[in-house]
């Protein structure tokens, strides 16, 4: 999946969780979920569940731990999609 498509789709997924809507509008590969978007850390599991549902994949605990920014999310999702 290309970067622009993924970022656009991820923006919609994280929208309800992001407390900083300005940072959300500027979302890029380097955006950090907690530090930039101000997502409550407890909600990171909800983001992961929504990503799993969107792409019909399963993300493991170790992957979840490092899925803290857009770049990591894209790497994990792309890897999973290629396995399919």
């Amino acid at each position, binding site marked *: 999946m290309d970067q622009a498509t993924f970022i656009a789709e991820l923006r919609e997924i994280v929208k*309800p*969780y992001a407390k900083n809507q300005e940072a959300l509008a500027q979302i890029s590969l380097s955006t950090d979920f907690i530090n930039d978007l101000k997502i409550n850390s*407890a*909600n*990171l*599991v*909800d983001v992961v*569940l929504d990503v799993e549902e969107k792409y019909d994949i399963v993300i493991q605990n170790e992957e979840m731990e490092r899925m803290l920014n857009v770049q990591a999310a894209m790497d994990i999702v792309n890897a999973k999609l290629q396995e399919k």
Partner: protein
Amino acid sequence: MHNRVVITGLGVVAPNGIGVAAFREAIKNGISGIRYEEQLAALQFSCQIGGRPPLEEAMLRPYFDELELKQLKASGIIYGVMAGMEAWADAGLPLLQEASPDWDSGTVFGTGTSGVDKFREAVYKLDELQVRRLGSTAVTQTMASGISAFLGGKLGLGNQVTTNSSACTTGAESLLMAYERVKYGHAKRMLAGSTSDSGPYIWGGFDAMKVSTFRHNDRPEAGSRPMSASASGIVPGSGAGALLLESLESALERKAIIYAEVLGGNINSGGQRNGGSMTAPNSEAVQRCITDALIQAGVKAEAIDLINGHLTATGKDAEEVKNWSAALGRSGADFPYLNALKSQIGHCLGASGSIELVAAVLQLKEGFIFPNINCEDLHPDILEYVAPERIPRQLLYKDLHLVAKASFGFGDVNACVILKKYPQP
């Protein structure tokens, strides 16, 4: 020197009215909030009627953000947050956006059981080996203190934030716990209240116990019949009530509107002895609760103008009236006025005490007695203690000075609250 404690804000989400204005109109006009429940019928309940606040999504928007609306399945938390925030705003208190919490304000906001629909969803996922898919709110929506935690965050409360639970006594107990905290100077303001979920997963146990009526599925509005000879059980209800308690000093300083003064009250238990059990009250304990409430409040039995009873529409109503009569030493035409809000909204379980207290406070402040509905055939055992004209079937306008409100709950627990009119120019 202890603080005098007054009520400066009200909020309510009831089956017959959402918000104080709608609720006031409904109770004055004897409007029933009981409806036929298709879901209960589909699940083969004996009792297929219930009381559920008629909420629409748009009403939730002022209270919850998009994420909360996406995740919230706990109806009791929704009702409690709406009622609690209404009471806060009604008291003229601001929603602070500051970083520092309001150290002087807290809440005791009770519930019987919380988030049963969320719990059900979580249990199904667990059994399907999907524990990882519960999401982040399975705990916060099902912990008993979910409601006080939600309110604490929304209002920025920095004093005690807790949830009490004592079955159907919960609401009256929450008010007395909040009262003590303000009385003894531990807080300036405490939000008291209680809430109860809607629906089959909270009401099913009562259906199984056969305490819910099965005789009125075809006439829902006539189903909840406290004090009636044809009463045949509770109609389950749901919702939330909230009352903002504040030291008189703080209320006067803020120039707040004062609804009533909390003179005091009593909480006790019958110990499941002498006729008391897990599900039935020990009459001696009920009478003691009432007499001790009067002593604690410093008022005489003959001064009580109105009783807002627990009166659930089971066979226990006559016993309750007998206990009031014995405790107050009053009967016949000398019995105080008596009314039962459950005739209009059913038995809202953990929320009942708080919703009924909101009704009691409105009557005291505004000088009316809401009509008892569905008791045109008063039970003869009740008429032994109370003259029929003391159980108004029509709206009465009366200047009221003292109101007694009691709630009783499973576990043989009791609470009685004494409220006094606060004259304000």
